[in-house]
């Protein structure tokens, strides 16, 4: 008997989940796309830059050439090359681990680096450091690619004609010039000398700065970073873990703010206060203009323009009894007033455990109001005190325009790109006689400099730093010699201060001495010092906290006046700036981060102007939105989607463009992306994109290589609109539609599964009533119970159907994973960790448009709208998509017990292991893609091209026009567009030696990090010989290792381990009542399961009844009766929800036998 799967219809009450506006509108076009295995064009060569026929010609010619000489028929002679002398600690084939730290905006992240034969390949968090759980964020995971970036600056460049012509110079040239400089400036006390650098938490740099300022009293030391907190005390570290009520005022502390790793960890701990003990989970309110990660996690979210945050803060201050408060008459909106009143009541009732955080780009006055609110509520944060006093960029700009600066050092940063627009800083630099630039890349600032010196990456240099809390003292050690002779900032500053060139960590040791209380200023090499130093470098942190430590928010600061910011008038727009996946642009040349989808909009490789559906309608760019006026859906306007891009792409990916003009007349043409959850009248634009590599001649390219190949041309430069007066947002912006479109690569609809109870949620109250609420969602209760639960542990005695027959043994581990949707904030850290661990290539923008991205783990973002009480369960107007609730769901291979991909493989390339893994044998795969077709989770990725072997940028060819080098196939080669071949050497160094690098035509997917599993098992076998025979215990210790995604997760939402071990984290997690399998009713019995999300709405809040409202699949609901034909087929005589009897059990065996 054939088993017919009856998928449940979309729920008609409770929530409707949707991933994109197109899906929401449910147009025939969207259905057509959904039915496809891969998005339009993904599986075809037609429409590519090279036609299929042309491609065959290329291939034919090269095959014929390859045949001459029959080189393939000879046995290649391979060589084994040992060291000449053994290297200390080095065991060929084995990894070494070193502690270091990544300096970041606001504070460093402690790391452990994995090195194979002297090349670092992977970074993990250092969990030994107090306050850190051993996790990282996506940017820290991607830092390893920055180290091996083939576009890094490699040689000293001297400008013959600034901005136009460069010649290669040597490091010796530089030092020669450097010594003369120092001698000359010593004579006049540094008059005319300026140093521009980025803020740093390095105590050594602060020490060198003080020393330099002593030697050169007239030195101008300026620090600049585009995204600094406007708060009078700088970024504040809050205790999110112990807060019961958290209010975010335009502060994306889970996404783009400083110290997100710790914030996410603390927040997740507060959300984990859930379960049998009935503790109170924390409650998060977000008041913001753009739908950020913080807003996505919020229980209540208020959507208002950034310029109104100050007014809201004043109003809130008044209501919680902090300071003057504002009347808020200007806003005159009873809804907002009710919202704020309920919020204030909740805050006041949680005194001492309440926290209000303010976005760093809000004006200082708003920060002061928030400080007062926090004081009134008894919550206070700490902030790191500045280590040394510095000037600002505007001080420097003024000095330059007065002509007093003769020599300018620009160490790191990229001010010519990201300085406030009104300064015209690139042109200003060009006025300075001598500009020496130390940088990782030859970039916009280098183009204005007289001398460019390659900088060493942080993984190549000694250093020190403070963590985000401002007191944990971290060490940085080099893991590899500088690849391109680069020097670190500290080396340059030290020698400018007349210190001898450092021998190893000398500068750091001189700072470290006083910290541990030994020696003042100079390191005295006593035994005690050496022990402490070695401990410091080995552990990655000092046991003694750094002094001066931190400040707490000062009490009784003068009461600020209520915010005077006026709300936006109808028809007035504000432009708000934000940070995207590449931070402030410094990681723009990192392909992993460029291709990492924005967590909320799922946009890759670009930034776009985010507008709300309503604003889009007003601007006439309402692509893919429901028509605001009409009630009969769908009425979606796809008309502007005809691309005039030279490259033929799926027309649905062409987005309309607008011209944005700020009040001071700066304008930019930008693609528009309609973003649900965006505040009306607010246009949000991420900073950092729109990098422009210096335009070089071919001769210069030979010297520099092509700079910024990844970043160049991706997105638009938002800094051109940003001035120092309005760093966060600017009001009074004019917007007009222009007659152009722009292709955007958005992954939100790729690999989409239809809404079948994939994400499950409930309000806290409902959870307390029924902790097993997840079982009622979807049609799980109708599915065969055995397959629904799948493999729990050996005792549970799960027997797979005959087709999949296999035996499990209690001694063998059974691998499983549980992902807690309640704490997953969607930060993408797992995605990049997986990419680094598993040698996953990037594919480039136009491949992403075709849906060919290779990420093994993706994060599905679902919007949710309560459709209770609506006819047909369908929303009637666009209001429903303006305030969506959001859920994140990391989705990787579920390692199904009864994997649908396995029986359809004609060559047995994907089979099941005895430990429950669904394994892929790449060398068997012949690329039929049947498995991907049969995978209900859409988690298999196909190598359409040799992505690991091709650069990703486009090149211009005489006949074919602009062509992605990906398509050049075997004719691509080394020295030019037609001869470039192979992955750059430096990128090969990054590859994990324990994972195969896949080639074209091979299917791949998540393996549960099988290389880590095997390594752990083998490691245990090695230990079993301790007794002199092999009788030692070969059972793996509980949770002795984990997968890359679980290790990187700052929220600890992903747990991985052995299900046969009752004490493992994953076994415990799977016992949670919130545990469910996605599409488990299909009988796939996935090994990965999810824990349902619980929201914590405030019952007094307007609209609280819609928050966390559970989707219920009830037959009684009127909508379901209407759709009777699509009703889930239920065996007769079985009441809904009744346990299955054997007679009714659907059995896969019937399918076979």
């Amino acid at each position: 008997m054939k088993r017919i799967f009856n998928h449940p219809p979309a729920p008609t009450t409770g929530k409707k989940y949707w991933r994109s506006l197109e899906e929401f509108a449910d147009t025939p076009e969207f259905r057509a796309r959904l039915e496809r295995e891969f998005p339009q064009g993904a599986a075809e060569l037609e429409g590519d830059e090279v036609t299929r026929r042309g491609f065959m010609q290329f291939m034919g010619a090269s095959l014929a050439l390859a045949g001459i000489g029959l080189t393939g028929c000879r046995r290649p002679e391979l060589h084994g090359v040992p060291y000449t002398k053994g290297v200390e600690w080095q065991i060929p084939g084995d990894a070494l681990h070193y502690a270091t730290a990544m300096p970041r905006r606001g504070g460093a992240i402690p790391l452990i680096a994995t090195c194979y034969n002297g090349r670092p390949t992977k970074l993990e968090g250092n969990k030994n450091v107090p306050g850190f759980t051993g996790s990282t964020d996506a940017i820290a995971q991607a830092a390893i690619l920055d180290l091996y970036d083939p576009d890094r600056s490699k040689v000293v460049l001297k400008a013959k004609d600034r901005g136009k012509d460069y010649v290669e110079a040597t490091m010796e040239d530089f030092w020669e010039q450097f010594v003369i400089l120092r001698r000359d400036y010593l004579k006049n006390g540094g008059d005319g000398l300026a140093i521009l650098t980025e803020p740093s938490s390095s105590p050594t740099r602060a020490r060198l700065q003080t020393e330099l300022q002593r030697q050169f009293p007239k030195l101008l030391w300026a620090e600049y970073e585009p995204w600094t907190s406007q708060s009078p005390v700088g970024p504040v570290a809050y205790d999110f873990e112990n807060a019961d009520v958290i209010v975010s005022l335009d502060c994306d502390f889970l996404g783009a703010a400083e110290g997100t790793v710790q914030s996410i960890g603390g927040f997740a701990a507060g959300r984990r206060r859930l379960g049998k003990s009935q503790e109170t989970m924390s409650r998060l309110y977000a008041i913001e203009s753009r739908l950020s990660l913080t807003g996505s996690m919020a229980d209540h979210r208020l959507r208002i323009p950034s310029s109104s945050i100050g007014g809201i803060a004043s109003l809130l201050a008044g209501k919680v009894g902090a300071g003057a408060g504002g009347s808020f008459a200007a806003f005159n909106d009873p809804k907002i007033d009710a919202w704020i009143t309920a919020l204030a009541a909740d805050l006041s009732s949680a005194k001492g455990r309440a926290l209000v955080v303010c976005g760093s780009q809000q004006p200082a006055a708003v920060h002061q109001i928030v400080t007062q609110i926090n004081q009134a509520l008894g919550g206070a944060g700490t902030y790191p005190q500045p280590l040394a006093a510095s000037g600002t960029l505007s001080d420097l700009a003024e000095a330059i325009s007065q002509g007093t600066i003769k020599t300018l050092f620009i160490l790191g940063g990229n001010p010519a790109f990201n300085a406030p627009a009104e300064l015209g800083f690139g042109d200003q630099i060009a006025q300075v006689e001598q500009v020496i630039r130390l940088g990782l890349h030859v970039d916009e600032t280098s183009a204005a400099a007289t001398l460019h010196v390659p900088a060493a990456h942080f993984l190549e240099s000694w250093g020190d730093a403070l963590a985000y809390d401002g007191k944990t003292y971290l060490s940085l050690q080099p893991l590899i010699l500088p690849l391109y002779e680069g020097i670190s900032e500290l080396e340059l500053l030290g020698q400018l201060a007349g210190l001898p060139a450092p021998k190893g960590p000398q500068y750091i040791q001189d700072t470290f001495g006083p910290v541990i209380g030994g020696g003042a200023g100079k390191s005295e090499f006593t035994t005690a010092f050496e022990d402490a130093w070695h401990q410091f470098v080995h552990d990655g942190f000092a046991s003694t906290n750094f002094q001066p430590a931190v400040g707490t928010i000062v009490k009784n600061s003068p009461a600020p006046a209520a915010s005077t910011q006026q709300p936006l008038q109808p028809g007035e727009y504000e432009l708000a700036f934000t940070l995207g996946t590449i931070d402030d642009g410094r990681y723009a040349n990192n392909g992993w981060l460029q291709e990492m989808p924005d967590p909320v909009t799922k946009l890759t490789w670009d930034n776009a102007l985010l507008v709300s559906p309503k604003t889009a309608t007003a601007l006439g760019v309402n692509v893919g939105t429901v028509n605001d006026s009409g009630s009969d859906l769908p009425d979606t306007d796809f008309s502007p989607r005809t691309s005039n891009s030279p490259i033929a792409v799926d027309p649905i990916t062409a987005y309309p463009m607008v011209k944005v003009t700020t009040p001071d007349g700066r304008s930019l043409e930008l693609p528009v992306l309609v973003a649900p959850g965006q505040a009306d009248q607010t246009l949000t634009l991420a900073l950092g994109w729109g990098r422009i590599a210096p335009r070089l001649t071919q001769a210069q390219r030979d010297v520099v290589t092509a700079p910024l190949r990844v970043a160049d041309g991706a997105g638009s430069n938002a800094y051109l609109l940003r001035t120092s007066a309005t760093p966060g947002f600017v009001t009074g912006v004019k917007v007009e539609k222009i007659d152009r479109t722009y292709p955007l690569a958005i992954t939100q609809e790729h690999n989409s599964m239809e809404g079948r109870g994939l994400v499950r949620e409930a309000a806290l109250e409902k959870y307390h009533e029924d902790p097993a609420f997840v079982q009622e969602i979807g049609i799980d209760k109708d599915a065969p119970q055995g397959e629904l639960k799948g493999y729990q542990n050996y005792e549970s005695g799960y027997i797979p159907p005959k087709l999949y027959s296999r035996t499990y043994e209690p001694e063998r581990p059974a691998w499983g994973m549980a992902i807690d949707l309640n704490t997953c904030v969607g930060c993408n850290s797992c995605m990049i960790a997986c990419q680094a661990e598993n040698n996953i290539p990037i594919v480039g923008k136009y491949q992403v448009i075709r849906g060919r991205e290779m990420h093994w783990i993706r994060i599905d973002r679902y919007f949710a709208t309560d459709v209770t009480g609506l006819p047909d369960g369908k929303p009637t107007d666009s209001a429903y998509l303006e305030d969506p609730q959001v859920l994140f769901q990391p989705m990787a291979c579920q390692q199904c017990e009864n994997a649908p991909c396995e029986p359809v493989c004609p060559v047995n390339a994907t089979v099941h292991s005895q430990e429950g893994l669904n394994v892929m044998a790449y060398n068997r795969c012949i690329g039929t893609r049947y498995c991907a077709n049969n995978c209900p989770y859409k988690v298999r990725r196909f190598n359409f091209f040799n992505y690991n072997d091709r650069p990703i940028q486009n090149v211009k060819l005489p006949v074919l026009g602009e062509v992605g080098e990906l398509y050049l196939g075997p004719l691509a080669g080394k020295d030019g567009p037609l001869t470039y071949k192979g992955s750059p050497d430096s990128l090969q160094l990054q590859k994990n030696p324990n994972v195969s690098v896949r080639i074209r035509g091979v299917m791949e997917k998540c393996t549960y990090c099988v290389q880590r599993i095997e390594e752990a098992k083998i490691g245990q076998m090695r230990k079993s010989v301790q007794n002199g025979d092999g009788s030692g215990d070969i059972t793996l210790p509980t949770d002795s290792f984990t997968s890359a995604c679980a290790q990187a997760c700052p929220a600890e939402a992903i747990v991985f381990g052995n299900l046969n071990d009752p004490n493992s984290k994953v076994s415990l997690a799977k016992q949670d009542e919130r545990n469910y399998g996605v599409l488990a009713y299909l009988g796939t019995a996935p090994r990965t399961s999810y824990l349902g999300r619980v929201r914590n709405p405030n019952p007094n809040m307007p609209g609280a009844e819609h928050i966390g409202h559970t989707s219920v699949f009830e037959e009684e609901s009127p909508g379901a009766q209407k759709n009777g034909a699509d009703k889930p087929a239920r065996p007769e005589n079985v009441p809904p929800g009744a346990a299955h009897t054997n007679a009714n059990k659907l059995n896969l065996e019937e399918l076979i036998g």
Partner: protein
Amino acid sequence: MANIFPKATNLIVLKAGFALSIVGMLVALAVWYYFTPKYSRVGYEPVQPVYFQHDLHVGQLGLDCRYCHSYVEVSGHSNYPTTQTCMNCHTQIQKDNPKLKPIRDSWASGQPVEWVKIHNVPDYAYFNHSAHVSRGVSCVSCHGKVNEMNVVYQKEPQSMAWCLNCHRNPAEYVRPLAADKPGATSPIYNLDWTPPKGTSQGDLGAKLVHDWKIKPPTDCGACHR
């Protein structure tokens, strides 16, 4: 008119066809065999940059395998010896032997000796030496009696079927780790070891497989990842 072909010729076509198909099959088999590791790999004996004699060093002088391949117990790779390892002895012994010139040159220049790889596992297969020697698989099982080879050659086909042969019947190969008597070399590295009198490999192996809970994986993921 008489028949040109006698009656007997009727079957010639069939017979010839049959014979040709036999020949064809034989040719196919021969070609097939020619491409299997049994033919293409076994016996591969490349010329090494240095005429190193395993029979002299191991067989006659009695060096332990681990003197040179020192990390076999702790790493996936069984390392080639560093030049330093050679020079430990050859600064004293045979220090002017012209055959050792590449070693001395390497020591002087710091440029490593490029040994020619004999046993090559494909890149997509992850073989781990330490896992095998710590579970009682002797060097001899995969590399043959290297102590008797003047120049090392490949003894076993090292194909996947050959790997699985042992993974499916480990008792045939597993040896004790501890030496029979104090001071003797462990049976893993004693290539001439035979089971003690009164026991057979089968019985001893079966006991070890049971006691040590040896369950060699036969999943793809064990080696391919």
